[in-house]
């Protein structure tokens, strides 16, 4: 029993690392593709972090880019205004995001309040931050200083930027792994399955939902700065409603509670989306989102447990 628990993550992590390491090799030094790969992998890490609140705890959070953006901007501003190096700053950014998230969670996680209000409030949060930051920052793009170095988490080589994004994916994956095998993981799932029944085995459902939110929003807040590094600049447009929505979309398509499903769906669909955007971007903008929408409907109707259960079924049939 003990052995299988320790063997599990090592094997899965190894597979993940090997895949993540092969990707840049396959790109053969093409900087554009390396940057794109970093974008996709960071997106994937956000989806994996979302799995904690959405997949395990079953709370439909649509505010990923609000937490991500706040964390990123706080980190960047701390560097530019106060000279605090981002390596430290990302943790402050994460903490600020978590604090805001908790403020949203406290009123909406009370027992017996419909799930949809939480979804709405988090969707609204992205709009609120978009509006407020536009008031505070104006319509300008802010560029990070050209300085590079590890303490700034900023490098000349895109491969290293990619490697940083990849390590965030691994961290998010590990957090999921340990959550799932902890008391918290059991409690999160119980809440997702039936909140009343969860209360009746003695779970303080509100407190545990807040734990899930805390983990998720902190992770996203920390990732925000890497998002800015990849984009090289930031503005109020970082608070992007439809991008925020797509995080939850990938989580649902992948299969709630399935980290592997989330990684597959986000990598495949986002890459496909980027391909559409670069090929048809001028003639058919939005083709990528059209694709997400169609897949979402099909999954919702025919395969509500996501592609992970589809894959499992196929494997079973073979085996």
């Amino acid at each position, binding site marked *: 029993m003990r052995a299988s628990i320790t063997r599990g993550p090592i094997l899965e992590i190894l597979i993940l690392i090997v895949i993540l390491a092969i990707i840049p090799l396959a790109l053969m030094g093409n900087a554009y593709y390396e940057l794109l790969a970093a974008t996709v992998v960071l997106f994937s890490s956000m989806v994996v972090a979302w799995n904690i609140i959405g997949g395990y705890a079953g709370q439909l959070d649509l505010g990923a880019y609000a937490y991500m953006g706040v964390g990123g901007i706080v980190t960047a501003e701390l560097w530019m205004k106060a000279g605090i190096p981002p390596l430290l700053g990302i943790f402050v950014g994460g903490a600020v995001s978590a604090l805001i998230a908790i403020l949203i969670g406290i009123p909406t996680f009370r*027992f017996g309040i419909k799930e949809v209000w939480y979804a709405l409030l988090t969707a609204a949060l992205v709009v609120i931050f978009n509006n407020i930051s536009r008031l505070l920052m104006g319509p300008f793009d802010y560029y990070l200083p050209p300085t590079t170095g590890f303490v700034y988490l900023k490098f000349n080589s895109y491969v290293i930027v990619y490697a940083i994004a990849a390590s965030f994916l691994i961290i998010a994956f590990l957090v999921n792994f340990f959550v799932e095998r902890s008391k918290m993981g059991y409690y999160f799932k119980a809440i*997702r399955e039936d909140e009343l029944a969860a*209360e009746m085995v003695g779970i303080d459902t509100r407190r545990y939902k807040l734990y899930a939110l805390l983990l998720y929003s902190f992770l996203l807040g920390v990732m925000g700065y890497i998002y800015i590094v990849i984009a090289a600049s930031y503005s109020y447009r970082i608070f992007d409603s439809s991008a925020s929505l797509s995080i939850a979309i990938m989580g649902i398509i992948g299969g709630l509670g399935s980290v592997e499903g989330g990684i597959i769906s986000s990598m495949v669909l986002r890459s496909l989306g980027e391909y559409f955007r670069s090929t048809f971007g001028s003639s058919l903008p939005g083709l990528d989102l059209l694709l997400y929408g169609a897949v979402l409907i099909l999954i919702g109707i025919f395969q509500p447990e996501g592609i992970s259960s589809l894959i499992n079924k196929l494997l079973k049939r073979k085996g």
Partner: protein
Amino acid sequence: MMVEALLETKDVVKRFGGIRAVDGVSISVERGEIVGLIGPNGAGKTTLFNCITGTYTPEEGHIFFEGKEITKLPSNKIIRLGIARTWQVVRPFKKMSVIDAITTGALLRHGKIDEAREKAREVAQFLGLPEEILKKRGDEITLMQHKLVDLARALATEPKLLLIDEVGAGLRPAELNMMIETLHKINKERGTTLVVVEHIMRLVMSISKRVIVMHEGKVIAQGKPEEVSNNPQVIQAYLGIKPV
């Protein structure tokens, strides 16, 4: 000195709009007994359970558990004190395996996953859930198994008092006999006090030494099963609702 009751309700009232679903109910349950709680549809039995477990907060009255007032406590605190329940309609954790669902219950008193799993296995075995069921998902098992899993999940929290709502409904005669035996066993071997809401008289009468009858939110009779079933008020309550 008087022996303190395990559970005591005093003039509990719970309204829904104009209906007084529970209307001044005072009952007391002694440690170790099996009490039957019966009454026609809509009598307020389930609502009373909901008040005791904190799902609803009663508008009036007080509820005591082991002498401590629990009337306004949140559910999770009440459960921690040692009350558990099952539902009229099963509420499984559909996408979790059966063993995981029971483990979730056991985690209340065993923080470590391994210990909780062990506890869950012990409870499952005690209730006669076969090993191969434990790996199945909550949406892959039969009604009887569902009822046992709900019971197991509740028992895994190691309650002193277990509130059971219509566990017999929908079961076949053979299954019903097994269920009766199981309830007896829970009470005898684990010392758990049971309050059993039931419409199936055979089940109530065969397990409880004492029966409480509710009608339109009020307690209209209580006593030994045979006394209660001959009580004219009780007969009328049942006949008034359902002319047989």
